[in-house]
């Protein structure tokens, strides 16, 4: 008698649904949680992050804002100081320019300046990433821009399970958390969807701790570090590399700040080779920080020079041919991994 196939998960969620579900559950549990942003109420968010919340909780707690990031994100900082737990959506991270003072000078420093007496439990969720021809003001990642500034935590999920657990952790955190989600993983169709990002997620309450990376594929020959969409490039590449007899370990950062150096270093200590895959700008970026963090550790012996893949230091091109030429993909990861394996010392 043949063994039966394992049953499929009873339900699966896109990252968009997982975010909406987490916010809804926390709003039901905690009356101090509220949501503000552009098109987040009636429409449910242009990337589906607040689907169904207006009907459940009404316009007092789910509030459409005009195009006024300076005002509604500034208001969130004040609400957080007064004991509320606001979630605000900055529709595209590219729009941070007009509201950055509220974010990095006010929200990020509120706890420090008050000697810990006034916390800032707010979540700023924002879409990142390109790949669908939306040009240089709607396609940036800016992970390192936010990760560079102290006082904020920065997270980005690669799948629905982590999205829900990270959002629940973010809302409950006493510090401001920048919750980034990659447009190509939202399950919105027109942005492309990576099937692997659509996962099961428990209906109940659970946390994915902020500050903990995950090893999503074990391997011995090299460590490939990714975040958000680039985790999937790394996993696709690892599959191709396995067919060539190369065993790649894949680390999903999940949190940009604070960076989980312990998990990254433990992996490279084992494999001796490091490749970072990032779709943010190259210079002063995620790859540089991770490679430096590994090289600073005297207990790690590298078998090859580390490699970083990133978007070059130019604005994101509009035309798809040019955009895909500069964006990372699985083939570029395989090519870099092949170079990593050529050197041995």
């Amino acid at each position, binding site marked *: 008698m043949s063994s039966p*196939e394992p*049953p*499929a998960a*009873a*339900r*699966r*969620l*896109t990252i968009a*649904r997982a975010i909406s579900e987490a916010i809804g559950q926390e709003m039901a549990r905690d009356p101090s949680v509220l949501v503000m942003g552009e098109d987040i109420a009636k*429409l*449910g968010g*242009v990337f*589906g992050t607040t*689907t169904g919340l207006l009907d459940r909780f009404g316009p007092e707690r789910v509030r459409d804002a005009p195009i006024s990031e300076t005002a509604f994100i500034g208001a969130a900082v004040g609400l957080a100081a007064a004991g509320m737990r606001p979630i605000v959506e900055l529709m595209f991270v590219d729009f941070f320019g007009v509201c950055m003072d509220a974010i990095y000078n006010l929200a990020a420093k509120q706890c420090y300046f008050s000697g810990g007496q006034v916390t800032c439990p707010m979540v700023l969720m924002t879409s990142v990433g390109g790949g669908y021809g939306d040009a240089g003001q709607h396609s940036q990642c800016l992970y390192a821009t936010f990760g560079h500034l102290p006082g904020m935590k920065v997270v980005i999920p690669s799948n629905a399970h982590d999205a829900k657990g990270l959002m629940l952790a973010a809302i409950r955190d006493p510090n401001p958390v920048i919750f980034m989600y990659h447009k190509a993983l939202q*399950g*919105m*169709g*027109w942005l*492309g*969807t990576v*099937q692997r990002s*659509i996962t099961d997620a428990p209906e109940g309450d659970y946390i994915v701790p902020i500050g903990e990376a995950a090893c999503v594929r074990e391997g011995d020959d090299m460590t490939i570090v990714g975040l958000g969409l680039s985790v999937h490039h790394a996993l696709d590449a690892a599959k191709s590399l396995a067919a060539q007899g190369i065993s790649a370990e894949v680390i999903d950062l999940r949190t940009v700040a604070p960076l989980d150096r312990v998990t990254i270093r433990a992996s490279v200590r084992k494999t001796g080779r490091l490749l970072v895959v990032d779709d943010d700008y190259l210079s002063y970026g995620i790859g540089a920080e991770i490679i430096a963090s590994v090289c600073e550790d005297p207990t790690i012996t590298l078998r090859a020079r580390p490699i970083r893949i990133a978007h070059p230091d130019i604005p994101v091109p509009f035309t798809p041919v040019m955009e895909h030429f500069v964006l990372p993909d699985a083939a570029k990861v395989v090519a870099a991994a092949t170079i990593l394996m050529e050197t041995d010392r």
Partner: protein
Amino acid sequence: MTDVPIPADLWSADDVAAISAWLYDDGDSVQAGAVIAEIMVEKSSYELIAPATGKLQIVVPAEAVVTQGQVAGRIE
């Protein structure tokens, strides 16, 4: 074999609808009542519910335009 039709009464027939994502892969077993796909209509999202338990066969791929009543998949 049970057809999985695109709902006929949730949005205006004049609106363009497309499957934004299949939540399961072709060949996965699914349970009756589970949300198996999402349909995008004019920036609003609708759910496609499995009408039966069994193995999913995807007929219309993700990102393709669909019409009301069209068979998007089958469950056997």
